[in-house]
């Protein structure tokens, strides 16, 4: 047993990772903060925070078309991040990386451009029962406009997609399949590679919502062969307000622009405007320059980790939490898929999640409570919401122990 722990420490030095995150080192309501709300947003390492202030202190200028030194520097740094993202997700070309405001921004972009151009009356868009509202509503909007239909892949009790049913839904009418790589409520890792292959055989294009996957799972868009992928910087140790949409070049070329404005044009007359090349065609207006620049530091941080060891570490936190909670009378786990990231949803038979969240906060523990923007999933499961603990690399087994003990204590106290 001791050798195992020793091995683990050699494998992954969580304490030195924690040191990089200033926000983790504080007390909340008199207790050391336990931050278990990473699926909502992760904390940021010092180098990301420093990069933001460095940019504003030294390099701040609007990008592109500038001939002065600061504009050159800002542009170079902005484009550096594009290259860093490209290699981080193994995209064939840097022009296939579009900067957006986040996952939501990316999905809306695809729905409003690719969807608007290629969806026709009677066509179908396939989603799954565990999607985030951000991967439902944009499709509902465009489907309604075009007279297309949404189809939903059902899930098992454990929270896994039923692939047999997915195959039945696929047909010549299917134009788009848009699926979360990882469920933000259940933690389920979906078999996206198979999903993509099957969709392609049916002639459909696939968007992968990687909002929850990007922080945990090494991603290779070429190998996955997805047509689009969207994710947010803030969910992978990066800044808020920036996100990435990856798209295959031929699709991005075929899509009409999304928003009109500066940067996305080649030539404007009042008679006609010609649009800029990729990726600028989809980046109208002054983008979120500082946050994009600082995103490179978040990628560098993730690349500096031994990703395999980090995955094992997070998996250990997951296992420990699941078995700890399962051992508490009156607690039910929601989402028990075989392949999961560090997301644990649970409900108590006597304590409402809002009360639980508040009692945990009083003990310094931050979790998320409610429907997690997956109301259709909640309806399907017949629950109003869950308590959700979600992990990042900097969480520790000691934090999990404290969390389990605290939940136990709360339940005992409310029993009497």
């Amino acid at each position, binding site marked *: 047993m001791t050798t195992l722990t020793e091995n683990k420490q050699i494998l992954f030095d969580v304490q030195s990772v924690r040191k990089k995150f200033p926000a983790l080192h504080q007390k909340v*309501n*008199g207790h050391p903060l336990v931050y278990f709300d990473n699926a909502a947003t992760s904390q940021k390492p010092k180098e990301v925070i420093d990069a933001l202030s460095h940019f504003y202190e030294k390099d701040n200028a609007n990008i592109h078309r500038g001939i002065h030194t600061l504009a050159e520097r800002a542009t170079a740094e902005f484009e550096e991040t594009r290259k860093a993202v490209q290699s981080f997700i193994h995209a064939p070309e840097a022009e296939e990386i579009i900067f957006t405001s986040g996952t939501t921004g990316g999905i809306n972009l695809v729905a409003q451009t690719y969807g608007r151009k290629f969806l026709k009356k009677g066509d179908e868009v396939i989603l799954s029962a565990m999607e985030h509202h951000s991967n439902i509503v944009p499709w509902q909007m465009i489907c309604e406009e075009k007279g297309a239909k949404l189809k939903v892949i059902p899930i098992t009790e454990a929270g896994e997609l039923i692939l047999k049913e997915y195959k039945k839904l696929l047909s010549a009418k299917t134009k788009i399949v848009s699926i979360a790589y990882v469920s933000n409520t259940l933690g389920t890792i979906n078999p996206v590679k198979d999903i993509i292959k099957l969709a392609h055989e049916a002639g459909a294009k696939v968007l992968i919502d990687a909002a929850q996957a990007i922080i945990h799972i090494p991603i290779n868009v070429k190998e996955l062969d997805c047509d689009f992928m969207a994710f947010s910087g803030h969910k992978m140790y990066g800044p808020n307000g920036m996100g990435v949409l990856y798209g295959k070049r031929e699709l991005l070329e075929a899509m009409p622009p999304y928003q009109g404005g500066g940067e996305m044009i080649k030539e404007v007359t009042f008679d006609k405007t010609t649009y800029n090349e990729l990726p600028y065609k989809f980046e109208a207006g002054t983008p979120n320059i500082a946050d994009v620049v600082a995103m490179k530091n978040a990628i560098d941080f993730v690349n500096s980790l031994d990703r395999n060891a980090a995955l094992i570490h997070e998996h250990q936190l997951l296992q420990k939490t699941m078995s700890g909670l399962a051992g508490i009378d009156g607690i039910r786990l929601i989402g028990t898929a075989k392949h999961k990231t560090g997301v644990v949803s649970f409900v108590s038979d006597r304590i409402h999640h*809002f*009360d639980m969240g*508040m009692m945990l906060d009083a003990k310094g523990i931050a979790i998320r409570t409610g429907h997690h923007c997956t109301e259709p999933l909640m309806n399907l499961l017949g629950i109003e919401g869950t308590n959700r603990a979600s992990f990042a690399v900097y969480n520790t087994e000691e934090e999990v122990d404290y969390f389990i003990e605290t939940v136990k204590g709360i339940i005992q106290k*409310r029993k009497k």
Partner: protein
Amino acid sequence: MNQSINEIQEEIIDEFSMLGGDMESTVFYIMELGNHLPPLDEKYKIPENLVKGCQSKVWLTTSFKEGKIFFLADSNTEVTKGLISMLIRIWNGRTPKEILNSDLYFIEKIGMQRVVGSQRSNGFASMIKQMKLYALGYQQKEKV
């Protein structure tokens, strides 16, 4: 009913100050308050009785006897139930005029927003509004 509205508010302020700002004791104290509410019959737990603007479900119903309003309430969360129980403790058995003219200064004194957070604070404001609307309704009915 022998205590005035302000006497009860002072009492609540005292109780909170005894908790010394400890978050855990405060949360448990609020939930404990809810336990003292008389149970609300299931037949009142209907959508029409839900207080709008609360994230939790809060059912509120009233009766009017001899010029005084009596409130009954319940919630699906214990903290929220505790919150509305404070309002009922202050306002139960008062005339519409007393309710409409009262200044609930205890909310600011105990630092409600800090204690329960902004979302629940907004929900709390919705409960107050709903109770005052009832008072206004009864007041107008009395006038006719």
